[in-house]
């Protein structure tokens, strides 16, 4: 069954829902409406994920801008973006459930969540560079408000830091996009891949590659641009943390894959060692800092830095003969990290609602009081450290196998990151959930029915991908293979 305009629907369903929420609804009805919209969105993204190979879903509207400035409304989907869209739909619904108990300015909260979801889907589906950039920037405003209004701690500082870091990164990216346009005369991302080798660029291609990559590196984030992440994650409300870690970081990885690798294959090969180096720094440095954290959310935030290092390492493995394997691993890591870290932030958010503290030494002995949350935290934790049978294992092993021929030493060092991960995850769970019960937590209860749903969704997806990874990895592998054919590498 072909549904015309399905990609536009996926983008505009949440955006228009956000407008409807803002204009017509009030608190309680907004919540129900947002849930309905996100269920619809999950079904649409699921449909796109399953059906994208059956027929060409791309949509093109060339009359948007005059021909002299040929910005097009061009949406398309391939194996690289389809799983990420599914992830967005999945975490979109999770984030609605996560904010079920928001009582302050409820309507606005759901409005921004929906707007955020629409913008992110826009980033993953845009095939016109300027449209891509438009959605890339559009996502900032909802996130800014989500952190600064409903956050905790130094929320205004963190929101501003998140915003300034990201637009500073995108400033470089914008220059890059304009230079590419001046050189190739088009914003069409598919054509650019073909035209890049012959383009008449006004700046050295190495610098252009750097400019584009900086924009994505800030988002991923790559050391030393990662400092916004712990602040933003820690101070954001649960739903925003889930979206931030789950899909917004993936925009950086997606950009690196689609643009840095897809349009600059030669440069990627030339600077692969830099990527590998920073990947290893991210993994080891991120993990080392994580061990030191005493705030649950901050701990997970830093662990994201470490995990995103694996994405970098996977992308760096060009020229090793099995490029596509490492890249597939990197893409798979993005997907699994989205579900795993989403689950971690979700559970910790729920626990915080009850204990009113995230300070690990203050916690302890919660397992008996909240068995469901404990199970959820243990599953997510074990997946995060790469236990076989969970999705985390598949992604990391794929990356290691793919990257080893290209960067042996880096891969060996990176493998030690897994040990560190096991250290901080297990230690965190042990200190916060187990041990002697504390008197101040005697009254607190376990998950409510509404909270079990998102936890269930994520646990199922983690285990399912762990047991049968091909469900996602085949799609990624297919998309990456196509991209590599187009760029002429391997």
């Amino acid at each position: 069954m072909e549904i015309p305009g399905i990609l536009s629907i996926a983008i505009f369903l949440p955006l228009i829902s956000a407008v409807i929420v803002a204009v017509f609804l009030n608190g309680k009805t907004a919540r129900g409406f947002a849930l309905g919209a996100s269920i619809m969105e999950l079904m649409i993204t699921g449909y796109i994920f399953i059906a994208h190979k059956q027929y060409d879903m791309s949509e093109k509207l060339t009359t948007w801008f005059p021909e002299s400035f040929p910005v097009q409304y061009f949406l398309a989907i391939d194996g690289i973006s389809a799983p990420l869209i599914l992830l967005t739909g999945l975490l979109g619904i999770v984030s609605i459930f996560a904010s079920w108990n928001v009582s302050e300015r409820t309507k606005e909260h759901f409005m921004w969540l929906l707007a955020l979801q629409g913008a992110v889907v826009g980033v993953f589906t845009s095939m016109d560079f300027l449209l891509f950039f438009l959605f890339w920037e559009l996502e900032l405003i909802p996130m800014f408000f989500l952190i600064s209004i409903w956050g905790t701690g130094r929320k205004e500082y963190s929101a501003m830091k998140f915003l300034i870091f990201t637009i500073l990164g995108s400033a470089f990216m914008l220059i890059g996009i304009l230079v590419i346009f001046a050189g190739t005369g088009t914003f069409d991302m598919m054509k650019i891949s073909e035209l890049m080798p012959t383009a008449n660029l006004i700046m050295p291609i190495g610098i252009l590659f750097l400019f584009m990559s900086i924009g994505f590196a800030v988002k991923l984030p790559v050391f030393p641009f990662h400092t916004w992440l712990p602040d933003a994650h820690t101070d954001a409300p649960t739903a925003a943390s889930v979206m931030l870690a789950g899909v917004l970081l993936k925009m950086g990885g997606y950009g690196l894959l689609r643009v840095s690798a897809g349009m600059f294959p030669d440069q990627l090969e030339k600077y692969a060692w830099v990527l590998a180096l920073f990947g290893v720094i991210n993994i080891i440095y991120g993990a080392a800092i994580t061990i030191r954290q005493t705030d649950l959310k901050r701990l997970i935030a830093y662990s994201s830095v470490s995990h995103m290092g694996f994405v970098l390492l996977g992308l760096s493995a060009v020229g090793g003969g099995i490029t596509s394997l490492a890249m597939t691993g990197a893409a798979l890591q993005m997907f699994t990290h989205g579900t795993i870290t989403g689950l971690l932030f979700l559970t910790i958010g729920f626990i915080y609602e009850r204990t009113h503290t995230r300070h690990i030494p203050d916690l302890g002995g919660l397992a008996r009081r909240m068995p469901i949350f404990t199970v959820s935290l243990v599953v997510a934790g074990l997946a995060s450290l790469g236990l076989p049978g969970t999705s985390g294992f598949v992604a990391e092993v794929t990356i290691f196998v793919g990257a080893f021929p290209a960067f042996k030493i880096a891969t060996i060092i990176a493998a030690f990151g897994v040990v560190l991960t096991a250290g901080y995850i297990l230690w965190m769970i042990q200190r916060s959930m187990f041990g002697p019960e504390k008197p101040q937590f005697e009254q607190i209860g376990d998950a409510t029915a509404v909270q079990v749903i998102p936890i269930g969704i994520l646990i199922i997806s983690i285990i399912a991908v762990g047991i049968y990874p091909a469900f996602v990895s085949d799609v990624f592998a297919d998309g990456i293979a196509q991209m590599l054919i187009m760029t002429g590498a391997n």
Partner: protein
Amino acid sequence: MNYIDLELIIPEISMALLAGLIIVFDLFSSNKRLLVPLCLIGLLVPLFFCIAAAQESAEAGFMGTMQVDDFSIFFKYIIILATALVILSSATYAKRFDNHQGEYYSLILLSATGMMLLASATELITIYIALELTALPTAALAAFIREKKSAESGMKFLILSAVSSAVLLYGMVLLYGFTGSTHLSDIGTAIATQLSGSAGITDHGVLLFSVILITAGFGFKISAVPFQMWAPDVYEGAPTPITAFLSVASKAVGFAIILRILYMVFENEALSSDWTSMMAVLSAISMSVGNLIAIKQNNIKRMLAYSTIAQAGYIMVGLAAMTSDTTLNTSGPVGILVYLAGYTFTNLAAFAVITAISESSGDDSIDSFSGLIKKSPILAGIMTISMISLIGIPPTIGFMAKIYIFGAAVETNLTWLAFVGVINSVISAYYYLRVVKTMFLNSASEQSPIKPSIGPLSAAVISIVGTVAFGLYPRPIIELAREAISTIVG
């Protein structure tokens, strides 16, 4: 001269007649409430004549001193639009002027008449007279509140405007002395023949000197650094709608006449490389100075004054991007026109909101916006979109205009300038978002809801609809701007 020429300035004549009519009406009628509707209906007449003139081909008249072409009509649209919105947003504000309301509105209309003449003037003396006709009513308007700050504002504007006129005149005199004509087209040909001759070098210097003087004269109009000193004080002291008028219409015609002079007189290869690099430097300085000082401001009008200086800097990027090597490039000037149109919508929305707020709070500090989201969600929403557009974040015209103008810079090998521009946009995000933060996060001292009066509210709504609609579909503006520019590029 023959009477048919009068047809060319029918829009201006009808505008001036409208100003007279308002005064007469004010004299005989005690019902001041009819003034605004009368002005608005009256403005349809010049608008209609402009639309009629747009259907015909370009025509010169009054012995070559005036030229009505798509270029001048584009600016007349902007002027009429800005005048209408400024009058609309003054509807309640002007009540404080009691018996002088008629003068207030007719002075606005007279100043607009001068601006419209300026948009089609092609001869030095005509330009000068039109300029004075623009400036004198504005000076009176700036001092209209008749208290200390406003009087200072009017006085400052008058004196500095006189100084800048003197500088401008000196530049014009030099030009006349070396070419023997006051007609822009004749001057252009004279320069071309002189510079192609052997004695080029000395003339070159003098001509460049006159470019500098003329730029300085108009630099005052567009409040570019280093001719910006008047702007903050005048903006702060003048009645808020007049500040809006100054920041939008006055700036737009400033750019109109600069574009015309640069294209008709100084587009010569030998000169253009010099003045484009001058514009590039001024542009970079304007952006940086405006943005950096704006960060520290606590008065919203003063902040927007510095913001307008920065915005002038962004627009000047288009002036700098006029030539690439030896050929004239049109995307820079087209970018200027698009930017000006977008800036008109965006800034008028912001000022309409400020007018509405100051009516109820009597205060122009940024703190008076505290908790606006609770007091008046619609005003807070409009102000937020306007600030987002000023930063250059989608889905607004500010984003599209910035992309277009920076794109032109990259096309003409001014990547460094585009880079300065985007970095400046990042800096500006900080202070524009401060306003947003104040509205959404700070709690107000008193919670009584603000009920904006119909005038400023409708002006704000119209402007913001324009900001978003053209942000999503900028094609009409770009097409119009391209036609306009194509008439002045020989």
